[in-house]
């Protein structure tokens, strides 16, 4: 594609309006309309999106959520992909806690995992930036580099036609973030905060994506457990008529996700 001259022009904001219903914009859409064209492809929220919301309710003890799991690698690439996603999510938690040493350790783990996945060449500069920026407490840089690292690996996997691993990296990232979120909410429950766990459609999508992965890529006991846990979480991560998720359910979500995360690390 030839560089378009459009790019040479600056783009200036000229105004904002509250819901201007442009020509043909409906006020309501029938989501079951068979003629609606949905865009395929999901973007999973990163943990920081959720943590940012929770922090607006008051400061949280993120330091308590920084875990230090020992990663033992084997030849199971599916597990490695899950571990990569989990490690990135641990990085986001460590950023939230502003834990320099944890972020630097995670930066090194990211590089080790990406080497095992065969994508180290694409990730190395980001991993180095994570370690370097953490040393200088440049948290916004670390945050950006973590998201870039995650996206770079997803892109590389997609290029290599490893779509199953893409789903597993995304699932691992979501699981790690949800583990931390539920744990924080369990320690400091509030009806307002519990609403952040209202993710039934997202869990269903993750579950469907996971169940669509070939049996070969899901070999091992831990993968059977993932399927069951996602099924369980789908029923738990849904607000009630009052727009809340009960404290009991939050505790159950925290326990289920923690046990699954530990099982993946230990499997």
């Amino acid at each position, binding site marked *: 594609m030839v560089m378009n001259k459009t790019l040479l022009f600056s783009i200036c904001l000229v105004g904002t309006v*509250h819901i201007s219903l442009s020509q043909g914009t409906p006020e309501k859409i029938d989501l079951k309309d068979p003629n609606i*064209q949905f*865009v*395929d492809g999901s973007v999973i929220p*990163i943990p920081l999106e959720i943590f940012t*919301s929770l922090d607006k309710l008051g400061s949280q003890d993120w330091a308590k959520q920084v875990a230090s799991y020992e990663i033992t690698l084997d030849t199971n690439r599916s597990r490695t992909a899950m571990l990569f996603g989990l490690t990135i999510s641990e990085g986001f938690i460590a950023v939230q806690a502003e834990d320099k040493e944890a972020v630097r350790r995670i930066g090194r783990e990211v590089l080790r995992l990406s080497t095992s996945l065969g994508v180290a060449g694409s990730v190395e500069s980001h991993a180095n930036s994570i370690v370097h920026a953490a040393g200088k407490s440049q948290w916004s840089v670390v945050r950006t580099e973590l998201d870039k690292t995650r996206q770079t690996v997803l*892109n590389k996997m997609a*290029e290599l036609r490893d779509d199953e691993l893409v789903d597993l990296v995304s699932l691992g990232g979501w699981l790690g973030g949800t583990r931390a979120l539920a744990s924080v909410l369990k320690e400091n429950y509030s009806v307002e905060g519990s609403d952040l766990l209202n*993710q039934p459609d997202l869990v269903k999508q993750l579950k469907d994506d996971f169940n669509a992965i070939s049996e070969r890529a899901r070999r091992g006991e831990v993968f059977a457990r993932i399927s069951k846990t996602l099924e369980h979480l789908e029923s738990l991560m849904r607000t009630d008529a009052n727009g809340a998720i009960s404290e009991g359910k939050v505790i159950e979500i925290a326990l289920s996700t923690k046990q699954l995360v530990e099982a993946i690390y230990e499997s």
Partner: protein
Amino acid sequence: MRAKPLRFAASVVPGVVALSLLSASLHAQRPEGEISPPAEESAGQAQPVIDEVKLIAQRAAMASLTGENPFILRESSWSGMIDPGKARLIQLQLFKRNEYHFWMAVPDRDAGVNVHIYDGNGEIVEGENIRYDVGNVAGLIVRPSESGVYYLRISLQTTVATPQEWSVIYAYR
């Protein structure tokens, strides 16, 4: 659950996005509208190219990514092709108390694009539509009243005759 009988196959853009406009938007070149890669593309052969349409959206986003309370740009994005007069829906999970800023861009400066957001029941959600000095870029700021699933509706006006490649990026704070 909603039915998805006509899934439009646009990939989540494999974009290596830079935060600054000085950085190029790169992605593995894959023809739009195909879920599976074409036969001639094989593993490892995808060539990085500049995603010009995404770059237009990023240029519009730049002013919102700096300052005292900047939005934080996500690296993920969506892209595809759209016909004049048509719309697409993107399913999203949004969180209460956050503010989200979406940008949509198409290449033709004569084009007009619209971006709106709907809740899980299909009701339009109040937001701020952002207009720029060019019609081929539009923005939307939304503050969800509850956490849950939302649908971003993007559409292309009939001011152009030809289908347009589109790109959507977003940021939060």
